[in-house]
């Protein structure tokens, strides 16, 4: 396995961000899903050697994230959740600087290829301060790919992107995932449903699920019901069903509710990945 975590914990003072997480991640796109504050970013930072774990152990291709940071950093591409570039530099200069830090030899060809691939060639000579959120994000993934890393860690890469950018971004990741390890941390189920081969769900620092999207959906087969509620009865129904309601969607004449567990007036439906994810968090 490329990335292995054993009983990984991390505390910030009294707050336990990770509580004994065991994970094994191989080649392909791996989704790390969970609500805000679940511990995803902490996990990514530990693997990226930015933070040491409080206890437990994590390795990347056999190298320990605490004792053998340099060999890990040599094979790593990392796009943090809050990515920024130096305002004094242009897009091209920023990539050239990161290439120098990564020790990339003859970086010009690689930089030009990445700028081309991510549609940044036209703005490469402009200062990064003039970039839109989407352009900055693409610059972020370009810097992560410098040096052709074996492991790519991307933390909430689609946050703040418009729908078109988001679709394009997922395509990039799918292409890249065919021959490297990609860990995608996100709170968007849609991202995982579209591109991930396997996923883990973290909640309050604990590992709640580990497997394929199909396996997660299968866990809730026969347990998700949909009912249509007229608009005037929505409040009452929500109160009656409480936490069992997974999603509601406005439809003509009322709302369609997806509910965990049997409801007399509901009909059994095939769960989506989002249903299964939300249901798991309710359990």
């Amino acid at each position, binding site marked *: 396995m490329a990335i292995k975590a054993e009983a990984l914990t991390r505390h910030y003072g009294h707050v336990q961000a990770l509580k004994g997480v065991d994970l094994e991640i191989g080649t392909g796109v791996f989704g790390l899903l969970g609500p805000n504050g679940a511990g995803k970013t902490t996990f990514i930072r530990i693997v990226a050697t930015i933070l040491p774990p409080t206890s437990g152990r994590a390795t990347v291709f056999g190298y320990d994230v605490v004792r053998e940071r340099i060999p890990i950093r040599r094979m790593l591409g990392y*796009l943090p959740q809050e990515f920024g570039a*130096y305002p004094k530099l242009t897009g091209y200069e920023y990539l050239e600087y990161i290439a120098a830090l990564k020790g990339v030899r003859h970086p010009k060809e690689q930089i030009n290829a990445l700028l081309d691939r991510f549609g940044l060639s036209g703005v490469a000579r402009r200062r990064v301060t003039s970039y839109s959120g989407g352009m900055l994000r693409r610059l972020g993934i370009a810097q992560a790919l410098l040096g052709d890393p074996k492991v790519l860690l991307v933390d909430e890469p689609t946050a703040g992107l418009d729908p078109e950018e988001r679709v394009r971004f997922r395509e990039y990741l799918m292409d890249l995932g065919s021959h490297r390890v990609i860990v995608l941390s996100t709170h968007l189920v849609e991202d995982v449903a579209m591109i991930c081969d396997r996923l883990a769900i973290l909640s309050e620092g604990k590992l709640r699920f580990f497997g394929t999207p199909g396996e997660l959906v299968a866990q809730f087969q026969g347990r998700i019901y949909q009912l249509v509620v007229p608009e005037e009865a929505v409040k009452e129904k929500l109160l009656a069903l409480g936490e069992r309601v997974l999603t509601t969607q406005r439809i003509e004449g009322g709302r369609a509710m997806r509910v965990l567990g049997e409801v007399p007036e509901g009909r059994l439906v095939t769960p989506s990945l989002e249903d299964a994810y939300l249901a798991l968090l309710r359990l």
Partner: protein
Amino acid sequence: MINHLFYEAKLSMSWRLLLLSVFVSILRLTKAFSPEVPEIWVGWVVFLEFVYPVLFPLLMFTILEREKQWHTLEVLVGTPKKKGMIFLFRSLFVLLLLVLVAIAAVSPAEYLLIIAPGLALGSVAFLFGLFLGEEAGLGLSLAWWGFSFLSVLTGRSLSSFRTINWFVLLLSTSGLPRNELLVRKLAHLGVGLFLFAMAFTLADLKRSWFVR
């Protein structure tokens, strides 16, 4: 390596500071500013010794703070390049400018007088900035400067406390014999260089780069 150095220079270079050193040099060279008259010269050196060292910790603070402000720290740390080397280059470019200003502003005999306390304060800001957080580093260095300033203001005799008086950085008004003053300034310089070396080593060994 040259590429790396070029970018570190570009990132750390303060054009305002460079302009200041050029400006002061022009004033000195054209004799528009001639502090050779002893009364002016003494006042000028005393003023510089009080004010100039504060620039060092402020600039060291900026080096660390900007990485967080610009959200560039995590990518930087995630690269295999030694962080000590990165911060060494950045500090050198900043310190070089500060030293250039000093060279332009005072005569060679007074370099040590204004550079030594600056290096000592800058190194504290940098070392403790890496260790405890940049605000703590800056706070500690300014506290040290404040202690020295208060010592001068309250006019305490430097000989009254045997060990503590070595921590007083501002000595031009102390009345100490020139030789002893230089020894103390050399000690401050030595402490500054030693703490800087420790800071760069710490940057390499640092395991937790907690980003708020």
